[in-house]
């Protein structure tokens, strides 16, 4: 059935805790169900039948940030949306990672104007940038693979502190409920 048949009687495998934990993290990395604009459609496409992101243990999108490990910022972040993105990021429990999907989330893309934050890294720390407008599902999957490689090299203690990024709150419109 599994690896034990192919490898014969393995008995004991020695490895480091870090390797096992990181292996586990890469194989069940749940993205936040969070789409902003055009890129979200390609993100949906990469989860649908043809590209099937579940091959990489990532089919389970969680709508609640509390249960998500990965935020894929799919689309342009407007000035009105930026505080919301930040709040969602803060609500995610550690360890957490961010992929800036597409040109808008990476650097503002074609929208160099008053309304769009010129890259989501002004608001939250980004691990992987995926270029494209919108990136093809292959590009997103490549970005995710890249993130997996990065996670495999991480220390399990002392995960980077996302909150250390300085946010210019004066620039943003705060959400008043």
């Amino acid at each position, binding site marked *: 059935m599994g690896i034990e048949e192919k490898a014969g009687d393995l008995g004991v495998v020695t490895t480091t805790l870090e390797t096992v934990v990181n292996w586990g993290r890469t194989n069940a990395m749940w993205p936040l*169900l*969070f*789409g*902003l*604009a*055009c890129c*979200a*459609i*390609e993100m*949906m*496409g990469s989860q*649908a*039948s*043809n590209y099937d992101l579940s091959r990489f243990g990532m089919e389970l999108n969680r*709508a609640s*940030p509390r249960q998500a490990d990965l935020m894929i910022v799919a*689309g*342009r972040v*407007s000035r*009105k*949306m930026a505080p*919301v993105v930040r709040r*969602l990021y803060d609500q995610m429990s550690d360890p957490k990672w961010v992929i800036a999907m597409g040109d808008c989330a990476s650097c503002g893309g*074609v*929208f160099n*104007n*008053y*309304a*769009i934050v010129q890259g989501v890294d002004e608001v939250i720390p980004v691990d992987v940038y995926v270029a494209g*407008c*919108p990136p*093809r599902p292959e590009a997103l999957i490549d970005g995710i693979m890249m993130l997996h490689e990065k996670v495999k090299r991480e220390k399990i203690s002392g995960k980077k502190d996302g909150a250390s990024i300085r946010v210019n709150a004066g620039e943003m419109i705060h959400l008043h*409920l």
Partner: protein
Amino acid sequence: MTITGEPQTIEQRTEKPVRRMAEYAATPLTVPSPKQITEPAHAGQTETMVLNMGPHHPSTHGVLRLVLELDGEKVVNVAPDVGFLHTGIEKTMESKTYQKAVVLTDRTDYLAPLSNNLSYVLAVEKLLDCEIPERVQVARVLLAELTRIGSHLVWLGTHALDLAAMSAFLYAFREREQILDIFELVSGARMMTSYFRVGGLAYDLPADFLPTVAAFLNDMPANIDEYEDLLTTNPLWLERTVGVGAVNADDAIAYGLSGANLRATGVSMDMRAMTPYCGYETYDFDIPVGEKGDIYDRYRVRMAEMRQSVKIAWQAHQRLVDIGPGPYMTENRKIAPPPKSEITHSMESLIHHFKLWTEGFRVPRGDAYVGIESPRGILGTYIVSDGSPKPYRVHLRAPSFINLQALQHMSRGGMVADLVALVASLDPVLGEVDR
């Protein structure tokens, strides 16, 4: 109803007389602001509960925020809060030349980029008053109908997903990928194609375009049957959609609904028949209408529309076969860049090329409005030109935005869970709502 020849007015196309706009002025149309709901609640003046839905919510189809006033599970009032995706597209267009602004139109309604291209391009062409080759018009019709199918497939998939019918999403995206492959074939991009340009198309149609389209259109009716098998008579689907979120024809018109949302109420209004563009008057197709204007009718209308789109696309396909190879741009050298081969021979072509790529073409002073039938409704582009190579003002009549107005009218008195189905059935695209 079969559309042949003359465009008809709303009165001709519906059984009952339709009220004119002046009469609607007396009808109070209210869309509350979020503050109207939150402020009394915070002051403790109400017995109801205020619930925030969005901007991050899986079934608001983007970044729509709804402030709900609830009495138990009953919806008392809904205030949509839009603008979370405001991109400043209309303003940015003012700093682009007419040809470059096409790129921005793609990104408004990102489920139907070619429809946006078409609306904008037709408005500019109306100002320019230039001749567009027949082959281009037919190709535009064909691609616009494929766009409609592709957009409806996303609507179907996400609508079903919102009501927990997950398999429909996987089926719908399977066919959508084929449509995206066709777009990639013609333009090199899957979604943001910018394929329609002022004066024609960006590139010529590739040789394997027609066979690919034919293969897709051949399979599509059977695929639509498959979706209908999943949902149309599914008891759970019927339970969630029949009689839910109904709106009558009068109110639908008063709120400015258009597209399938309006047609589901029984009003047979379709821009392709009312004010035909790109030669739609010469195609044979029906306009599906509903009766009750509920979620189920909207579902049925869109499903039927997909079949009609296949029908139109077949006709356009046949015409392209008949026309054969030909020009893909207008002959007017003031608008269309000359082919590379001409540039090395003709001084005039070289000058045209230089002027077009450095400055762009100048559009006569004036204004123009063109409304087309996008998958979401009447998508209008209004352009004001001051005679320079850049538009003075561009305004989009975004059907999603206007359809969303009726949300609180439809959802009042219903259950919260139905609101999810209702938002999905209105099929808003927040990129277009906020622009």
